[in-house]
């Protein structure tokens, strides 16, 4: 086991983790030249299109070190975006060490710090790696200072490399084998294997990715999933070497996959421990902290018939995305759906996109919301993230909303604009301090709700890409929350209701009214669209009736075409949502509920 190393690559977004993984894979000859493509571990289409890693991905490599010894390296590439820190956490739990990558021109950024702390939480050995030294703007000395001062790590040990140019790759591998510890664990002990990820294979059922902590996993074994108490027989085990490679066993220290004919997705709990039924381990591996969702939105299928498919899809997606939470929900306008919890807006967007692509579902999502704490006159407390559950205002004693401590790292010259941005978002206690010469960290306490929408985009544009943002949850603070209803000809459209701070109610309501007026096709009667708090109208628009739509000509040669068009329209009409007597196309919901830019 001395020749095994299990490590992950962690860093701020875009610092080159996946590119470094490419070089390590190639150096170890794990892929034929003709099968290679950039960021090969970013295997999902969405990852490739967006150029970011969304899922951790592991690969086992064979490396012959300079001293002639051979090693088995289990490498896990992780995502850098905050919304996927749950992925990073799970990866860290199966590793002994981590390569902490820092971009030589960008330096230490918010997620560099955050991920380092995560790794330290799990007692991992850290090797700092300065990447992108090929860039003209690379400033290795400055970055060394930041590693010392912002991270508190010894920068003499930092390995220099350029993942893109393939410089220093062997140095990286040598420090992996010499500076990171081998796993401990006894192959003969009772089995303990941590499930750190899973995916659904339509032919084989759930494929579990495991790190064997103790004991040995073999086909034929009767195993027990400790949290869910489910029994299965192992069918196959193996290593991940860009594809599944079957092996005879997975012994303590190994990272690989297990197939055990698990068709009931509910039996799988990522973070659970697999043990042997005959000779169970005493305690499971300490589980993950379940992800704590901060953003909530209801997901509805475009057409109600797709509801059962949506239910199945969420169950399977959840296997592969442990951070996703969901519960049944329903809306008068949109029918049955699910109330889902996400780690952030990007997470929400990715889930929606994966449901669309991997399960061929088209969806409508309600406006994202944070979770509020409502205290009633009788002292009882309820957590509310769904506008439909917002109680009668008269019964509420106080409402609190989540505040975050936002940290923005940036070159000094952007400080003024970033402070302004924080002020706009109801930031309080805004402070800053110098990190190194010319670099500041700004700390501000802000309501999470105000950060949800496009804060990151605005920050990027204000700082020309040099600002990075991270946050931690702080506490709940008093707020003046109102429920804004959107009414179409007097009928409230439940799916469009939202909870907002009173100060933002009017602009938000008006924005919704205007978007609806643009997207609801005119009908034979006038349509009034209103935004209201309680019974009081705070915004309104109208859609005038149309009085003519008939085509000028319809002779012998036009009839077939016209009938076909009509048949198509009638089909489309069936998919329209009715609010009172007003037809609202799904596209209107989609347009109105598209992540707001207000």
């Amino acid at each position: 086991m001395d020749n095994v190393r299990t490590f992950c690559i962690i860093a701020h977004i875009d610092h080159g983790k996946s590119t470094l993984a490419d070089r390590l894979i190639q150096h170890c000859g794990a892929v034929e030249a003709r099968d290679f493509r950039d960021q090969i571990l970013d295997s999902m289409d969405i990852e490739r299109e967006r150029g970011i890693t969304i899922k951790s991905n592991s690969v086992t490599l064979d490396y012959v070190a300079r001293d002639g010894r051979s090693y088995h390296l289990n490498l896990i590439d992780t995502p850098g975006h905050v919304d996927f820190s749950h992925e990073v956490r799970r990866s860290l739990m199966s590793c002994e060490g981590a390569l902490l990558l820092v971009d030589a021109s960008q330096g230490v950024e918010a997620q560099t710090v955050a991920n380092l702390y995560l790794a330290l939480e799990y007692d991992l050995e850290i090797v700092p790696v300065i990447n992108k030294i090929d860039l003209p703007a690379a400033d290795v000395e400055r970055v060394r200072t930041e590693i010392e001062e912002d991270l508190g790590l010894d920068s003499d040990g930092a390995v220099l490399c350029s993942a893109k140019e393939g410089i220093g790759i062997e140095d990286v591998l040598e420090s992996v084998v010499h500076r990171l510890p081998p796993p401990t664990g006894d192959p003969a002990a009772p089995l303990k294997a941590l499930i750190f990820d899973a995916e659904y294979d339509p032919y084989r059922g759930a494929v579990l990715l495991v790190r064997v902590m103790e004991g040995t996993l073999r086909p034929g074994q009767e195993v027990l999933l400790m949290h869910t108490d489910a029994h299965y027989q192992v069918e196959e085990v193996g290593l991940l070497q860009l594809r599944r490679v079957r092996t005879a066993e997975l012994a303590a220290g190994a990272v690989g996959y297990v197939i055990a004919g698990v068709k009931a997705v509910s039996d799988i709990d990522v973070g659970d421990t697999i043990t042997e039924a005959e000779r169970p381990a005493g305690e499971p591996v300490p589980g993950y902290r379940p992800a704590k969702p901060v953003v909530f939105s209801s997901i509805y299928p475009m057409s109600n018939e797709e509801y059962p498919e949506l239910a199945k899809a969420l169950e399977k997606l959840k296997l592969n995305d442990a951070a996703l939470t969901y519960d049944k929900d329903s809306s008068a306008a949109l029918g049955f759906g699910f109330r889902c919890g996400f780690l952030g807006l990007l997470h929400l967007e990715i889930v929606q996109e994966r449901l669309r692509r991997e399960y061929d579902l088209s969806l409508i999502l309600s406006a994202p919301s944070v979770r509020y704490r409502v205290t009633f006159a009788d002292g009882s407390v309820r957590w509310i993230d769904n506008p439909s559950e917002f109680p009668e205002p008269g019964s509420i004693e106080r409402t609190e909303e989540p505040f975050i401590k936002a940290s923005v790292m940036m070159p000094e010259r952007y400080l003024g604009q970033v402070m302004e941005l924080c002020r706009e978002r109801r930031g309080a206690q805004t402070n800053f301090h110098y990190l190194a010469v010319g670099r500041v960290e700004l700390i501000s306490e802000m309501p999470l709700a105000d950060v949800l929408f496009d804060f990151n985009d605005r920050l990027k544009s204000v700082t020309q890409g040099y600002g990075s943002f991270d946050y931690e949850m702080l506490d709940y603070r008093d707020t003046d929350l109102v429920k804004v209803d959107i009414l179409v000809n007097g009928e409230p459209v439940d799916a469009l209701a939202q909870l907002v701070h009173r100060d933002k109610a009017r602009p938000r309501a008006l924005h919704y009214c205007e978007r609806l007026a643009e997207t609801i096709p005119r009908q034979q009667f006038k349509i009034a669209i209103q935004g209201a708090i309680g019974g009081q109208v705070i915004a309104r628009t109208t859609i005038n009736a149309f009085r003519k739509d008939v085509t000028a000509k319809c002779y012998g040669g036009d009839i077939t075409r016209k009938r076909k068009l009509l048949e198509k329209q009638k089909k489309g009409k069936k998919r329209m949502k009715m609010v009172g007597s007003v037809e609202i196309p799904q596209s209107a919901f989609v347009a109105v509920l598209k992540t707001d830019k207000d």
Partner: protein
Amino acid sequence: MSAGLYIHVPFCASVCPYCDFAVTLAGEERRQAYVAGIGREAALAAADGLKFDTVYLGGGTPSALAADQLGEILGAVRGRLQVGEDTWTFLEINPEDVSAASVSAWRELEVRTVSLGVQSFDDAALGFLGRRHTADDARRALDRLREGGFATVSLDLIYGLPGQSADGWCRQLEEAAARSADHLSCYQLTIHSGTVFGRRQARGSLGEAVEPVQAELFLLTHRVLAELGYEGYEVSNFATAPRHRSRHNLKYWSHEPYLGLGPSAHSFVGRRRFWNQRRLRAWQRAVDAGCRPLEGSEELGDAELALEAIMLGLRTADGVDLGSLRSRYGVDLVELNRRAIERFCDGGHLVLDSGRLRPTVSGMAIADTLARELEVGASG
């Protein structure tokens, strides 16, 4: 039920920038081949066994053919198909083709309705529309046709042109009435992709009138023409008396059978609709080879036919014949749509009386919506 015979004459002297008909600038040689081709196609179509009481020469510009060519066509169809004694013959004419000689030749061919492509009595509008005649040409042509003694003189007008005022349009209608047209076809300008106007629209330099203006002009047209003594018996068609209605076009709107000859022409026989090759060359190749020049066909079920019957009926003042809808296609429209019909009647769009569901003028204006809103049952 007697059928209608439509003959598509695809020739024009130039192509108007808004036109999306199957037209060609082909010259004499191909025209002659075409005339012979119609004869062949008529012979092939005789097998359908239809009996005709209307013949409609449309286009394109039928008047662009020489009178003897038209004679040859009419002779061929009259000889090879069952065209009855009292058949009503229609001819579409462009003003530049009208002369004393052509008028008397058309009379000799027993044309009863002439339909003159005036489009406008305004030279600027004619220029915009790319027409080859002036307003005065149109006036002269109209007088000649009037004097020619045809049973019905009809004219085509286009409205909703960019910059055209409601007043300007009213004056057009008044002039048409003053020149005692028996029948008017008034088409709101529609821009089709694939035309010169379509390309201009795509570039953003041209557009149809916005809907409120379109609606205004449409309702105005029906109102003014009613005052001038014309009954709007269809969305775009008006007649001073029932005998001047286009009995050929009425067949399209009431699901009577029709046969189309010539490129792009559509036919409806029994439950089958089929249509010819759109391009002259393809059509010609087929008929010269002794084949029916078909491009496509469809066999219609009850639900489809019912949907068409409603869609077409709601375009006409006579509306939908509920009894015939039930007996022909098994659809009880009122039963299926009580609430909707009530709503549209209350809204002043529909009237339900003596077994018919009729659109009012404002209902006709939204005939497409009405057809979409009314359920036809299972597959509709």
